[in-house]
């Protein structure tokens, strides 16, 4: 079953190398002197400062050598120094990563429970429930997360006062309370995708002959749904949940900004606004690694859930 594994891992590394090279070499795509871009502020550039930047980034060496050095240092946890915060980039990210991971985890709980739940409901109860779920997901998929964020704050934060609109919260329940609205805003689009995938996978599983055979063998509808329909629909549902969760890393950029949370996503926005290029590179690299690793894992797990999918077949 694990025949395709080395190939998948090689593919993963190749993708990561290519993506990291794009992130690194982007500096050279910019018009003008890369040292100017890397130095952060575009004003007050003295020749001394530029020379210092050149020395720090080894800009006089060939591109491939620079890239290799950057990659090697990054792999060891040395992500360079932020111009804005005058701090190690690794420390900056380390301090903010928990918030982002909590947010993604919380949002995942939301979209898995509500998305799969509503999808199952739509597939089982045709009629008005189905129409309501399909209509609701069309709406949910069309609302950008920042608009959802502001609508949620307006209604539940300002009007009803159920949830706090600022701050990070103390203790587990406090954090949970503070992260509820952000997590929901982040989960909304994902919820729509998962709901549709669930509904579709369930409908397909329902239509297959073996469900008819199970019914002919006298199984109850409940047994049929659990053992034959849901079980068979699980492959696409789990895969999609994994992919959507991985994609959420990028979604945190918007949601953290909208709620003023200090996580990795909002760090990226402020790094770009302040031209703090080492931080931008590091955060992008981190998010790309997270995304690619999670999606590869999902692909690897898929054959375990669905024996029809062979690893070797998918690797091609």
């Amino acid at each position, binding site marked *: 079953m694990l025949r395709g594994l080395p190939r998948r891992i090689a593919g993963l590394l190749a993708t990561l190398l290519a993506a990291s090279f794009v992130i690194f070499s982007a500096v050279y795509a910019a018009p003008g002197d890369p040292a100017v871009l890397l130095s952060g502020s575009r004003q007050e550039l003295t020749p001394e400062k530029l020379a210092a930047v050149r020395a720090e980034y080894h800009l006089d060496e060939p591109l491939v050598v620079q890239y290799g050095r950057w990659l090697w240092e990054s792999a060891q946890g040395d992500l360079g120094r932020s111009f804005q915060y005058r701090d190690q980039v690794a420390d900056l990210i380390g301090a903010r990563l928990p918030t982002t991971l909590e947010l993604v985890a919380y949002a995942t709980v939301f979209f898995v429970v509500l998305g799969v739940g509503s999808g199952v409901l739509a597939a089982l109860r045709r009629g008005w429930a189905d129409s309501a779920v399909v209509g609701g997901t069309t709406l949910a998929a069309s609302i950008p997360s920042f608009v959802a964020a502001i*609508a949620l*704050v307006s209604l539940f934060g300002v009007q009803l006062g159920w949830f706090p609109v600022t701050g990070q919260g103390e203790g587990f329940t406090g954090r949970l309370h503070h992260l509820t609205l952000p997590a929901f805003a982040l989960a909304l689009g994902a919820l729509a995708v998962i709901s549709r995938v669930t509904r579709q996978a369930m409908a397909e599983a329902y239509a297959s002959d073996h469900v008819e055979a199970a019914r002919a063998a006298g199984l109850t509808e409940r047994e049929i749904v659990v053992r034959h329909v849901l079980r068979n629909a699980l492959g696409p549902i789990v895969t999609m949940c994994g992919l959507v969760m991985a*994609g959420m890393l990028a979604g945190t950029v918007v949601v953290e900004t909208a709620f003023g949370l200090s996580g990795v996503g909002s760090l990226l*926005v402020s790094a770009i606004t302040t031209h703090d290029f080492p931080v931008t590179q590091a955060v992008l690299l981190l998010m790309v690694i997270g995304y690619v690793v999670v999606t590869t894992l999902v692909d690897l797990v898929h054959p375990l859930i669905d024996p029809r999918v062979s690893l070797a077949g998918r690797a091609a």
Partner: protein
Amino acid sequence: MTTLTAGALLPVKVRARRPVPVMVAGGFLALVVVAAVFAPLLAPYAPDAVDLSASLAGTSPEHLLGTDASGQDLLSRVLYGARSSLLAPLALLALAALLGITMGTVAAWYGGWVDTLLSRVTDVMYAFPGLLFVVLVIAVFGDGLTTSVVAMGLAYAPTIARYTRSLALSERSKPYIDAYRVQGMGGARICVRHLVPNLSGALVGYLVVLFGEGLMSLATLSYLGFGAGSPSIDWGLMVQEGQDAVVQGALLPALVPGTAIAAVVVAFNIVGVWVSDRLGQGR
């Protein structure tokens, strides 16, 4: 690798929707276009007319949708904002479609290194979740609406190319294409005159759905401060400018443009699904 990208929201199973929601959505979009074109005639105020005495006013006969912190009329601003909010995704799609359809057709027709290049470029592009590729381009080239549109166009092109490639591959194997070849017609001529026009139905449906996504993404970039900047009038930017007032209890400045974005995207999704349904199957 299976990845979530532009177009992922295209429903897995294309359901034939009843025409009623499609008519409503289509009618609404037509209204929005009219509003954008005739904004100067329809808007009760100049969009940038500051009136600090009417700051954060609620709905009233003078200001139907209220005002923002500087007392600018929100209705007028939303009407004017429709212009850049609709034109920018249009420009982005035009760029992405030109690049994507060309690449996809060439990759399907000639295969070889173009095909390999396309799949490598797409693989790398798909390693960046969501808008992160666009964010990288903006980090390097600086922010602004033009950068955003070009970056988004580049980001969407591989997706369109991949879709075009799959359509073109199945179309290429049809007998009529062989018939043209037998007549000695050149590959480029067959592609431009016959192959691509025959794909246009499916492509247009796909592009309509992408339009809604593009609008959403550009609004997000504007909101983050990477897209359209002050003093231009853009829905995403309006939400950003209005969000500080939310905590003070004035919801309209952020919610009015936010609702406009959501409503237009919903309408595009409904129409897009219907169009791709009709045109995709009609081939």
